[in-house]
């Protein structure tokens, strides 16, 4: 059974009610600009990762957060494995629907895979070199 992780915890949920807004789903080929004007009313945005090695969703997430100012739940779905979680979170995802067969407890540990990152990201907008300079 696929596990949902939200806020770094294993979560359960029921489908959003209509007043919570719609669920938008983006495929790797979709342009986030196409949903920009609906983001404010969305219950959540899902970005699909159809294959383990398909990294387009990482760029899509950063664009949603950084260019289009999306603040709501951003959920990675599809072939989402434990070893993606650290990068996904850095790029702005805060919810993760793990693919079948992933061990949920082991997956939670993945958020601590690295204690520091060099780059600017959604999670840490100030790159390490600027923090080192302080």
């Amino acid at each position, binding site marked *: 059974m696929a596990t949902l992780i939200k806020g770094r915890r294993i979560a359960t949920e029921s489908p959003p009610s209509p007043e919570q807004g719609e669920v938008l789903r983006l495929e790797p080929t979709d342009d986030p600009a196409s949903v920009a004007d609906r983001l404010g009313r969305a219950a959540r945005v899902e970005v699909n990762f159809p294959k*383990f*090695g*398909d*990294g*387009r969703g*990482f*760029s*899509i997430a*950063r664009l949603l957060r950084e*260019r289009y100012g999306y603040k709501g739940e951003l959920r990675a779905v599809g072939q989402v*494995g434990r*070893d993606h979680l*650290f*990068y*996904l979170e*850095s*790029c702005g995802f805060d919810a993760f629907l793990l693919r079948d067969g992933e*061990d949920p407890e*082991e997956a939670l540990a993945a958020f601590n*895979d*690295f*204690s*520091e*990152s*060099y*780059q*600017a*990201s959604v999670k840490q*907008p*100030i*790159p*390490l*070199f*600027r923090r*080192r*300079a302080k």
Partner: protein
Amino acid sequence: MYLYDEIDSRIVDDRVKQFRDQTRRFLAGKLSEDDFRALRLRNGLYIQRYAPMLRIAIPYGLLSTRQLRKLADISRKYDRAYGHFSTRQNLQLNWPRLEQVPDILAELASVQMHAIQTSGNCIRNITTDHFAGVAQDEVVDSFVWCEIIRQWSTFNPEFSYLPRKFKIAVNGSVSDRAAVAVHDIGLHAVKNHLNEVGFKVLVGGGLGRTPMIGHVMREFLPWQHLLTYLDAILRVYNRYGRRDNLNKARIKILVKERGPDKFREEIEAEWAHLKDGPATLIPEEIERVQARFTRPAYENLGPEPIPENSPAFAAWVKRNVHAHKVPGYAAVTLSLKKTGVPPGDVTADQMDAIAGLADRYSFGELRVSHEQNLILADVRARDLPALWREARALGLATPNVGLLTNIICCPGGDFCALANAKSIPVAQAIQERFDDLDYLHEIGELDLNISGCMNACGHHHVGHIGILGVDKNGEEWYQVEIGGNQAPGALGKVIGPSFARADVPDVIERLIDTYLVHRDSEAERFVDVAQRIGIEPFKERVYGNAHQRAPDRNREPALA
């Protein structure tokens, strides 16, 4: 050397822990073969023809003697006491055991080394000129910029699952010794009329099965914008690079399909959003990185003539000793191209001995060149005779740098699972045929590059003579091209149908004969002649006789 600070060390330690856990999960059956492949490759671990192969990163080719001794130790403890320096300035171990790789990585981390992103569909080791920091025509010290790009590319969360591998080269001098035109991104440092540093940015070059010369995206990108501009290029590539066909997934195909002008517009449009953002570089960071590099404590020697000695010494000086920006010093190439030894291979004992030489003669550091040799970059001119004697005793003083026998060669079918044909025996047969040094010097500068398959790890497209192993119904054949050049980048042209392995040395000899007949002076190199007169005269000489002698064997159509 760039010396890690506490954070750099911690990130590498985190990686060791992460990979140990990934290996554990794989061995416990919790990770599928396919998923583990994607993870282990980005740690340089291949499953090869006979055993795993571990590619250890040597960032921009720079090594300390402490690190080299560690590599020697590791090769003794976990492998068969030798290693292979690759054309991307890395070191490959051909016989490690999968279960022991996490331990090897932990040992590497103890000397600030790793195997991060040495393979896989991510940003690979940044390569540069092996004379960085000592070249007389230096614009900037490219090591500093390579390290800044290394940090930006290391575990970059957005660009860790690209359509395909991604190679960046930085050249910091006027002459291009980093082959910037044949990389996914090539950065050539330049100064503008105000003497400010920037980079000429080329995108979409590459070798492999579809060799291409990169297109200039910007003539001058001010240094502050380097990382945001790279972000823009990588983002466009990550989103739109082809993922439906492995053979069309490199950025060069995207640039070709879009057209360079359209591609440039897309990058610029993306960059407009990123420019001047937090990833814009600041002078403090450049200074910080510069300050973390160890610097040789040069003596104030003034110009010193290289001591005269025997003709053998003079030949070595002519080929293997290179000018240095500091008076009284020289850079020295230790040749790993001795006849009978696979190009780029070094034994553990040689590694230790080389570390000794570097300690005594070159401030404890050395470089790996993309031509698969080792460079001692800071040798006092007066020490050259002593160094030469020691290097010669170790079999590392073959005076063939820039000559025909300084062959660039991939591991080929002897090791590599991808290869169509063996490459090392071809290199050896050619080296044996051309073992007369006087003749080699008479032929003059000639790059001969051999790849065992169209992935082109041996850079055959940019060899003055390039040899490509092809498979025909399970048999090994060799296609020959001429006229390629590393810098300025030019791609070779295939002279005709491929050859059996045994015929390759004859073919090379005929190419050389043709060259010697047609050159207008000793100054005109093989590649100059090939580019001036075209392939026809070479073709006639090579195939004219073969046509009558071996009507069938030599006239098989080429595959690639």
